[in-house]
C-alpha cells in the first residue's frame, strides 16, 4: 500500500515545527483579510443584537434560512475529521499519520463555528445561551426534553468535548516536543504546562496510545449521533419535506461526504502553504478519494431514497415539495447544481487514478463537493418552509440578505483563521505519530532476518 514517509528524525522535527516558529508574509496578508471578514460579521451581529433580526431575509412563513443551512453545513464538515482520524486509528492504517491532526483540528473549528449559528440566529441569543442549560432549579423551569433543539446542544457539546480530548491526547507528545524546542522561556513554560509532564516514558506512551484508541472507539457513536440529531431538527417536525425517517443516515453520510472532501482540500492547501510536501503525498489523497467514491455513492443512494420515500407516501404536500425542488424554476437550478457538483462531476473523475493522484484536480473536485453539499442543505431546509401545508394563502419565498452572505462568508473565515492560528501554535502534523510511523517502518537486520525495528504494542 502507501509508502510511509521517510525522513530522518531531525528533518521531520524541523519541517513539522517550522511553521510554528516561522512568520511568513502571506500569513499576515491572509490573516488580515480573514479578520476583515470577521469584523464585518461582528458588526452585523451587533446590529442584530441591537435592532433585532430585521436585517435578515427571513419572513413569514420562512423563518429559517442561510444561518441554519450554514450550521448544518459546518456540523457536517466537522464529521469527517474525527471520523477519518478515529477509523484510521482503530484500523491502524499506517498512512493516517500525517492526516489525522489536520482532520481533527478542522473538526474542532468547524464545530466551534457551527455552534455560533443557531445562537446568533435566535431572537435572543443572550437567553439562548443559558436557557438551553438546565439551570433554573428554583422555579422548576427545565429545558423541554422533547425538543431537538435541546438534543442538539447536548450532542454537539458532547462531541466537542470528546473531540477536544481526543485531539489533546494525540497532541501530548507534540506539546512535549514543542516544549523542548521552544525558542524562548515563556512559550517553553506554556508548552510545558500543556504537555502535562510528558517525557516519553514507556508508561506514558502506553497510556497515551490506549487513551487514543479508547477515545476513537467512543467518539464514533457520538459522531453518528450528532448529525442524526441535527437531522431530527427537521425530521421530527410535521413539515412536509422535513418529516422523513431516512434523514438521520442521510445526513450522516452527507456529512462524511462533505467532511472528507474538506479534509482533502485542507491537506492540499497545507501541502503548499506549510511546505509539507514530504508528508502529504499523492498516496494520501488517492486513498481519501477512493473512500470518497464509496461515500458519495452511498450519499446519492440516500438522497434518492429520500426522494422515493416522498413519492411512495403519495402524501400530496410531500410530493408537492419534491416537485418544487426538482421541477420548478428557481429550485431546479439549485437541485441540478448540487447533484452535478456533489456527484456527477467528481465521482467519475475520481475513477481515474491519474486524477486521484493529481493535487490540482483533487483540490477542484473536493471544493465542488462542498459547494454542492452547501446547496444540498439549502434544498433541505428552505423549500419545505416556503409551502408548509395546504394553506396556500401564506406561501412565501426567501431571499437572503447581504447580512446573511456576510455571516456565511465569515464562517469560512473563522474556520480558516482558527486553523491557521492552531498551526501557528502547534504542529499541524502529528510529529510524534509520524516519527512512530517511521520507526515502525525502519527495519533492521538481525542475523539473516529483516525485522521491524519496533514491535507494535
Amino acid at each position, binding site marked *: 500500500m502507501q509508502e510511509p514517509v521517510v525522513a530522518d528524525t531531525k528533518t521531520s522535527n524541523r519541517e513539522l515545527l517550522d511553521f510554528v516558529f516561522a512568520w511568513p508574509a502571506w500569513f499576515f496578508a491572509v490573516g488580515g483579510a480573514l479578520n476583515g471578514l470577521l469584523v464585518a460579521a461582528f458588526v452585523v451581529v451587533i446590529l442584530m443584537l441591537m435592532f433585532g433580526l430585521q436585517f435578515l431575509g427571513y419572513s413569514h412563513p420562512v423563518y429559517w434560512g442561510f444561518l441554519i443551512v450554514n450550521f448544518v453545513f459546518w456540523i457536517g464538515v466537522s464529521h469527517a475529521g474525527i471520523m477519518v482520524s478515529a477509523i484510521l486509528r482503530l484500523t491502524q492504517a499506517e498512512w493516517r499519520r500525517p492526516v489525522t491532526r489536520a482532520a481533527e483540528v478542522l473538526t474542532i473549528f468547524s464545530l466551534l463555528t457551527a455552534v455560533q449559528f443557531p445562537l446568533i440566529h435566535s*431572537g435572543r441569543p443572550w437567553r439562548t445561551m443559558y436557557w438551553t442549560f438546565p439551570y433554573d432549579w428554583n422555579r422548576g423551569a427545565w429545558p*423541554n426534553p422533547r*425538543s431537538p433543539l435541546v438534543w442538539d446542544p447536548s450532542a454537539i457539546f458532547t462531541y466537542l468535548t470528546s473531540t477536544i480530548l481526543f485531539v489533546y491526547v494525540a497532541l501530548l507528545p507534540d506539546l512535549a516536543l514543542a516544549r523542548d524546542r521552544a525558542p524562548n522561556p515563556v512559550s517553553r513554560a506554556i508548552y510545558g504546562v500543556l504537555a502535562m509532564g510528558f517525557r516519553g516514558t514507556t508508561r506514558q506512551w502506553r497510556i497515551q496510545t490506549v487513551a487514543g484508541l479508547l477515545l476513537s472507539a467512543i467518539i464514533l457513536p457520538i459522531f453518528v449521533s450528532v448529525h442524526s440529531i441535527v437531522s431530527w431538527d427537521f425530521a421530527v417536525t410535521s413539515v412536509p419535506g422535513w418529516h422523513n425517517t431516512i434523514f438521520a443516515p442521510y445526513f450522516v453520510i452527507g456529512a462524511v461526504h462533505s467532511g472528507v472532501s474538506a479534509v482533502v482540500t485542507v491537506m492540499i492547501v497545507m501541502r503548499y502553504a506549510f511546505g509539507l510536501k514530504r508528508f502529504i503525498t499523492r498516496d494520501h489523497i488517492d486513498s481519501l478519494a477512493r473512500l470518497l467514491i464509496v461515500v458519495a455513492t452511498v450519499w446519492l443512494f440516500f438522497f434518492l431514497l429520500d426522494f422515493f420515500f416522498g413519492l411512495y407516501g403519495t402524501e400530496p404536500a410531500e410530493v408537492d415539495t419534491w416537485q418544487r425542488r426538482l421541477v420548478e424554476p428557481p429550485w431546479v437550478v439549485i437541485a441540478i447544481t448540487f447533484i452535478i457538483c456533489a456527484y456527477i462531476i467528481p465521482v467519475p473523475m475520481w475513477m481515474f487514478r491519474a486524477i486521484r493522484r493529481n493535487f490540482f484536480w483533487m483540490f477542484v473536485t473536493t471544493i465542488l463537493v462542498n459547494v454542492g453539499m452547501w446547496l444540498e442543505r439549502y434544498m433541505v431546509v428552505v423549500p419545505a418552509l416556503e409551502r408548509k401545508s395546504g394553506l396556500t394563502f401564506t406561501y412565501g419565498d426567501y431571499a437572503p440578505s447581504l447580512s446573511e452572505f456576510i455571516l456565511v462568508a465569515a464562517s469560512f473565515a473563522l474556520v480558516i483563521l482558527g486553523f491557521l492560528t492552531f498551526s501557528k501554535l502547534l504542529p499541524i502534523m502529528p510529529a510524534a505519530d509520524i516519527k512512530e510511523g517511521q520507526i515502525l517502518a525502519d527495519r533492521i537486520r538481525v542475523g539473516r532476518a529483516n525485522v521491524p525495528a519496533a514491535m507494535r504494542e
Partner: protein
Amino acid sequence: MSSSANEAAARASAVSEMGRTIPTDAEVPHPEGVRWGMVVDLDRCTGCQACVVACQAENNIALNEEQRVLERRAKTWIRIERYWEGEFPNAKARFIPVLCQHCGNAPCETVCPVWATYHNNEGLNVQVYNRCIGTRFCANGCPYSVRYFNFWNPEWPEPMNNQLNPDVTVRTKGIIEKCTFCVQRINRVQVTAKTEGREIRSGEVQPACAQSCPTSALVFCDINDPESAPAQLAEAEAGRSYTLLEHFGTDPGIIYLKKVDPHAEIHEDEHAHAGAHA
C-alpha cells in the same frame, strides 16, 4: 369638559355588565375540565375584517406598516384568508378566519426547547414571551403558520402608546407571538367568578375577535362543556363541522363549520381537484 370625577364614575357602566354580550346558559361545571375552543361558522363569516382589527386593538399588536406587509412580516394573530374558485363570471371568493388552532396535539409545543410555548390545563396553547428565545422552531412546526416573529421592537409614536392594553404584554424584538385566545380576558373572568364565589358562566368569556364579529361567525366556548351553546351548535351541525388540516393530527381546538353553497359541486374529499363552479 364639565364632567366631575363623581359624574364620570356615575356615567360608567358597571364592569360586571360587560361580560353579558351573549345570553348565558346555566352555570355548568363539567367533569373533563375546561378546554377553551372556538366554533367558526364559515357560512356566517363575510370576510369583513372586524375581528382582525379587534384583535390588533386588544392585544397590542404592532402597527403593520406598508414595508412590513411587503416584507411579509406583518403580524395578524387572526387573518382572513381568501381563496378563489373558478373564473369570471363564475368566480367565487371563499373566506376563512385563520388563528391559532390551540391544538390539543400541537406540533409547535414539542419543538420549543425552553417551554416558551406549552399546553395549559385549560386547553390553551400558551406563549410565555419572557421565556421565548426566538428560535422560530415553533413557527416552522405550526402547519397553520399562525406564529409571528418580532423582527424589531414595536413602536407606537406618542401619544399612541396610550391605547396599549395594560393587561397584555408588549412583545420585544426576538420573540414569537400569536393568538392567545385573549388569555387576559379569560383570567379576568376567572378572577371575577372566583371573587363572586361561582363558576364561570358559559359564554362569559369573550375574546376580542368573537366579541366584535358582526355576524357571530366566531363563537368562543369551552368545547368540553356539552351544555354550551357552541358545543351544541357543533353537535347539531355535525354534518358541516371539520377541523383545519385534519390529516396533520393536531387535534385543533377550533371547529370550522363548512360554508354552505347551494350551487356548489362538492369536493368529494379533501384532496379532490374539483373546480367547484356553479
